[in-house]
């Protein structure tokens, strides 16, 4: 059986040599090419990351001392509300969708997504949603009841009954847009993955990143509409005289929390599973071994997705209205498939030959930090311990360890890993390592002490705190850490700018990676592939380039049915 060598010819600049040239701005505004749309997702999301990060800097600056120094109470409440909302809906969820957009069609050997025009629509709804969300600042104030906007508070505004501006309504409309964008994206991704894989690529030969995207998008498809229904009910209560959440008129205040968390808990897996997929791509490449336990990974991911629908009320233990044992049990259980993944990742590295280029640093950093976030979450799975820790800084520590230490580290890992695919050039290693270590230090300094603050009883969403129990000293340490995180983005941005301006290019598969996106030019031509290698495993390029060495090792591999042959 002949093995097809892949040597696609590309125009020197990587831009299309076919078709008519359009003005670049018009091209980008109207493109339906998943690669360009992917880039726009990444750029748009990173901008919102910076905005929400700035809000975080304001929060931490205010919290450095007890009392109120820089912001009024209303402004502060808007700050943490906008920080959370922006990070979740305008940064983490879309940036992972952006990676998926660029990479998934390439990894499955397709020429675009199943519905390219819907893809473009999904993207453009996002900057619009962002503008609508932030326009609150122009109309007297944004939403201010936390990113969770619990009624009755969110129905009446934070300054007291009867004084609610447009902020919360703009918040609702913005999130309705984001939700629609996500749901359309889910339809697109799922159809693409099911229907457009190249010949030979069975489901169990798909790259793990594609599997995590598939499970994520199933979660998006089924959970986001429930959030839509909650938003709609809140909008009706606020503007059309509805009474879904008003006890005085027959509504139930806590019902919002149930509907909201039914979505928002699966949403946290939406925010982390693709990141885990990225790590699952990087570890094998930089360990020069296949992903250990591919099938176990698939089942663990699917298990997390399914279980994720059954735990929502663990956010509500302190309400006194939920069935504690059921939700506690399901929450404890979700630790098991996550553990399986950890052991499989470590086994991927085990007895490998590791190099620590920046993508690998961030991937291993993800493992270390997400481990902490996962472990401190287990404390919260126990209702009596949750009674003490709920709505305190322990929760803030937990969520930032999984979302920053987890998702953000994974996002940077993916960015450093795939940057050469997007641009034909690797980002500089020196600046990359500086970025990584500064961020590691800053991140841990900011968020690890929050565990202690939570244990010492400091509640969340407070601008002012009593100078009790060493809270002040710990807060100051955390503020310093936050400033270090801010500083750490400088080498990253400088790296990107400098690299893009560099004339010299790197080879098209600089990492000697395994999956199909590396089987074409960097960046790929509009149609993605001139030809594809044969696909017999989840590492088609590896099989192609290392056939001889693999033959030598054939006896050394452990026989198991978890291999994908």
């Amino acid at each position, binding site marked *: 059986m002949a093995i097809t060598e892949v040597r696609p010819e590309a125009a020197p600049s990587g831009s299309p040599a076919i078709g008519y040239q359009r003005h670049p701005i018009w091209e980008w505004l109207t493109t339906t090419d998943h690669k360009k749309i992917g880039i726009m997702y990444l750029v748009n999301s990173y901008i919102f990351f910076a905005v929400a990060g700035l809000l975080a800097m304001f929060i931490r600056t205010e919290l450095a001392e007890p009392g109120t120094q820089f912001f009024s109470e209303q402004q502060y409440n808007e700050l943490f509300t906008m920080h959370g909302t922006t990070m979740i809906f305008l940064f983490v969820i879309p940036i992972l969708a952006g990676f998926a957009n660029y990479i998934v069609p390439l990894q499955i050997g397709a020429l675009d997504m199943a519905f390219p025009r819907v893809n473009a629509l999904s993207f453009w709804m996002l900057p619009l949603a962002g503008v609508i969300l932030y326009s609150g600042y122009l109309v007297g104030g944004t939403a201010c009841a936390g990113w969770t906007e619990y009624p009755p508070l969110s129905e009446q505004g934070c300054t007291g009954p009867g004084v609610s501006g447009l902020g919360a309504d703009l918040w609702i409309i913005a999130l309705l847009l984001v939700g629609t964008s996500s749901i359309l994206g889910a339809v697109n991704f799922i159809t693409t993955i099911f229907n457009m894989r190249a010949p030979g690529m069975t489901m169990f030969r798909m790259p793990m990143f594609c599997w995590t995207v598939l499970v994520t998008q199933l979660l998006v498809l089924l959970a986001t509409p429930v959030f839509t229904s909650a938003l709609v009910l809140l909008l009706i209560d606020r503007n059309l005289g509805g009474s879904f959440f008003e006890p005085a008129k027959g509504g139930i205040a806590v019902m919002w929390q149930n509907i909201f968390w039914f979505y928002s808990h699966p949403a946290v897996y939406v925010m982390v599973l693709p990141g885990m997929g990225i790590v699952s791509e990087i570890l094998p490449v930089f360990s*020069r071994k296949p992903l250990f336990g591919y099938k176990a990974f698939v089942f663990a991911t699917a298990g997390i997705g399914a279980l994720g629908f059954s735990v929502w009320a663990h956010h509500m233990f302190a309400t006194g209205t939920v069935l*504690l044992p059921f939700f506690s049990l399901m929450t404890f259980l979700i630790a098991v498939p996550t553990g399986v993944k950890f052991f499989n990742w470590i086994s991927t590295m085990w007895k490998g030959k590791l190099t620590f280029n920046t993508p690998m640093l961030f991937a291993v950093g993800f493992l270390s930090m997400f481990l902490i976030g996962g472990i401190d979450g287990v*404390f919260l799975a*126990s209702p009596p311990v949750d*009674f003490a820790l709920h709505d305190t800084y322990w929760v803030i520590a937990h969520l930032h360890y999984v979302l920053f230490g987890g998702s953000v580290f994974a996002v940077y890992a993916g960015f450093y890993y795939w940057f050469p695919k997007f641009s034909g050039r690797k980002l500089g290693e020196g600046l990359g390592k500086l970025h990584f270590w500064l961020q590691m230090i800053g991140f841990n300094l900011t968020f690890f002490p929050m565990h202690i603050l939570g244990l010492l009883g400091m509640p969340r969403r407070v601008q002012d705190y009593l100078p009790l129990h060493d809270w002040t000293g710990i807060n100051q340490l955390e503020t310093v850490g936050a400033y270090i995180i801010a500083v750490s983005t400088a080498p990253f941005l400088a790296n990107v700018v400098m690299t893009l301006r560099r004339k010299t290019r790197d080879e098209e598969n600089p990492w000697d990676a395994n999956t199909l996106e590396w089987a074409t030019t960097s960046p790929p031509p509009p149609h993605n592939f001139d030809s594809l290698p044969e696909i017999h495993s989840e590492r088609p390029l590896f099989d192609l380039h290392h056939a001889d060495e693999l033959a030598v090792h054939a006896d050394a591999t452990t026989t*198991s049915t978890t*291999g994908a042959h």
Partner: protein
Amino acid sequence: MRRWQEEATGSRVRGVALALGGTLLLAGCAGGSFTGATEQAKPVHHLYMILFVVATVIFVLVEGLILWAALRYRRRDDALPPQFHGNNLLEFGWTLGPLIIVAVLFALSFQVISKVDAEASDPAVTVNVTGFQWQWEFTYAGEKVQVEKGQPPQDLSVKGTTAKPPQVYLPVGETIHFNEQSKDVIHSLYIPEFLFKRDLIPGHTNSFQITISKPGVYHGQCAQFCGLAHSQMHFYIHAVSRPEYDAWLTDQKKKLASGCPEDTTPGQIAAKNTAFDKDCLAEPANKPFTLTFNNQDAGVPHNVEIYTDKTASKRLGGATGPADLITGPASTTYRVPALPSGRYYFHCDVHPESMTGTLVVK
């Protein structure tokens, strides 16, 4: 790889592990500073320590493996390593192991839930807590006080302000039942040293019981974001011996019955930051009295004028009218004629919305 290289790698790993472990232990010690001041909190603290030990062991093990792999398996040549795809036995093992661990942790949690949520049928004290934006009211069910003649006796109520949060006295070692209600939005009663919080939800009554095991003063505050002054909703629980508690109850009832529990300095009132320092004045009936007013607001005019009621239509005493003001810092003394027993109203004519109070004459 040379042996010295292996040894160096090994000791590096050990050093890192020690540093991390040490930090964690320290964190654990600092974090364990609240061992729980109620009978219900003791098993919670115990459970926390078990979770902490398990968490530390798992963290050290897994992080250790990560760091070990990262350091031990660095690439030193270009040959491919053995291409292991997986191992079913391992998968089974590291699924079953964690499953057993979480099952045990769940079982322990379940036991502790029963203890924390248990409600005895005969609590010694029942406190009805009402939360509202942005204060608390603690009402002692069954402790009746005659506040006003002609009105039925009401339960003793402890309230507070932002500057002077409610001071709630409770007996040590006895079962205390709390009923929670909210007047507006969702609040949460959180007492860190009791390792406990429970939400106050409008339209729904939550209840729980505690038995405080150690005397002391315990700080609490709202832990469910409730708007502008959420971070100012504090309260303090004073856990005292039963005799002290009874004495406090009697004292509170007397003060409330006097109609003016906060007026510890009769005949005086001050203004600062455009607020009176008390919202209640107590004076004897049918006797003229003097009222010394100390305006501490530099450059700001205030006065104190007494009316029959909130409509401020009929003057009874104090300042002679809106033109009779003093600008701080300054003091003046008003002579007030004898008044029959009853409840009257006073305010500052310059700030009639924010500077108001009740004059209780008995």
